[in-house]
């Protein structure tokens, strides 16, 4: 396959034809189409780590679920949902309930409602044996925010919602 830089005088149709005929041009065109369409399965523009904040004012939120003693529980093992996935799902619920994905901007009651709805979904998807192995009495949904603002580093954790874990009924003694 031979390809040459279009000769002068510059002609737009000739340049467009040369671009289109070049495999890399075709590849770039498909890439632009993906960017325009965005994240619509099976297509994607792969926006991971694209929206980096400015170093003067940047933050990152993390989700964790703890027991009543504030000890983090392994989310993937207990609920089949990782921390990053869980946070996105919680944000999706928050968006529906409070109209915002930012938990800091949501009114406390709506934030709690979204958190409780999220914990209820986790409870539905739980792995019974693993939950029993950890024997929690309470699930606490928390968001940890690590931020750098104008050179000041901060690390805060906010409790969003709690859920009392239904305890298994004690087995009746056999007569």
């Amino acid at each position: 396959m031979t390809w040459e830089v279009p000769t002068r005088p510059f002609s737009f149709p000739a340049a467009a034809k040369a671009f289109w005929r070049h495999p890399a041009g075709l590849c770039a065109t498909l890439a632009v189409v993906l960017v325009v369409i965005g994240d619509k399965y099976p297509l994607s523009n792969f926006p991971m780590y694209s929206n980096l904040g400015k170093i003067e004012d940047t933050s990152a939120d993390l989700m964790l679920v703890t027991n009543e003693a504030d000890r983090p529980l392994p989310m993937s093992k207990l609920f089949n949902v990782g921390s990053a996935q869980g946070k996105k799902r919680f944000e999706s619920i928050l968006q529906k309930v409070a109209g915002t994905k930012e938990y800091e901007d949501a009114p406390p009651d709506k934030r709690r409602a979204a958190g409780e709805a999220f914990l209820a979904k986790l409870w539905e998807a739980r792995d019974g044996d693993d939950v029993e192995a950890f024997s929690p009495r309470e699930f606490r949904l928390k968001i940890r925010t690590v931020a750098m603002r104008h050179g000041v580093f901060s690390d805060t954790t906010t409790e969003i919602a709690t859920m009392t874990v239904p305890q298994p009924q004690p087995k009746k003694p056999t007569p």
Partner: protein
Amino acid sequence: MKSPWLTALFRTRPMHWGSAEMLIMRLLFAAVLLWAGIFWELPEAAAQVPKPEWLAMMDHGGAETMAGPESKSSANGLAAVVPLGWMVDTARSLVIQVLTGLTLILYVAGMAPVLTLLPALILMTGTGALRNSMGDISHHTQLVAMVLLAQWIVYLTAAIRQRRERPLWLRPAHQVQEQAVFWSLLTIGAGYFASGITKLEATDFAWIQRVPSMALQVMKAVWSASYSKGEPVSGFKAVTVPGWILTYPNAARLFFGTGLLLELLGPMLVMGRRRAFWTGLAIIVMHIGISVVMDIEFRNHIFLLAIFAVNIPGLILRSRRKAAATTEADGGKEQPLKTAPQSSA
């Protein structure tokens, strides 16, 4: 006026593959589809993904639904167009799984790919769309789905063009198989290039300038993995690496900027086999680096690059073929080793 430098930079080499190496590519790609691509086991919640809006409107006699924000659909991609909830049970069915495996064996053998790729294509795009409609979008399987879709379109186009001389259920010509591999590489390259330009577009071309804030993203990725798995965090990843990024921002810009550059070099994957090899290998190294530093793995992307771009079995087959051709050209005689200058006496 011609610019020899630019011409050399953009010069492409014809890309051809042998039948045996393309068979290995199809075999490995089918394995990726079966073991890492299709979501065979989705949670029940996936079946409750809201109906596509057009369908909900039809249920309401064509009137717009009075949906409040809390019931707004989160259906993504294909799930926003076609009702897919039924696919959760279908994908779990052993019969369907075996049938898909059998059709993929036929695809590997090169038999009627328009038909034999179809079950995998439907299951992959359907279950993937359901998975991404559950409130979070994962980016681990889209590239596989896009390559699958690209291959299927290549086979379909060829089948339509050659419908007279080569019916749909026959094996496509060698040239069509080559086009399928070429379009697989083109799709992979486009995926990486799209990721690169999305980064530039989202930050007003200041992505590299903002790399130091990646320190928080590294911390976030490491702690997220810890909260997911319940394992203690590595001090090196959670403290030392972010510390380095903040202490040596320009070195970090160089490191992560190389990653961005590699993404933007994605189109090199279709500019000749040698360039595809080196570009593919470099991007694989980038993924391994990200996995070490940030605990984020893109195994499917590595598999695709290894299968179609690096293509080690193809290299081995080509070197053997070259060696055989050289031996044949030499008339099968072994040449004396030129270890010392031959005396002319």
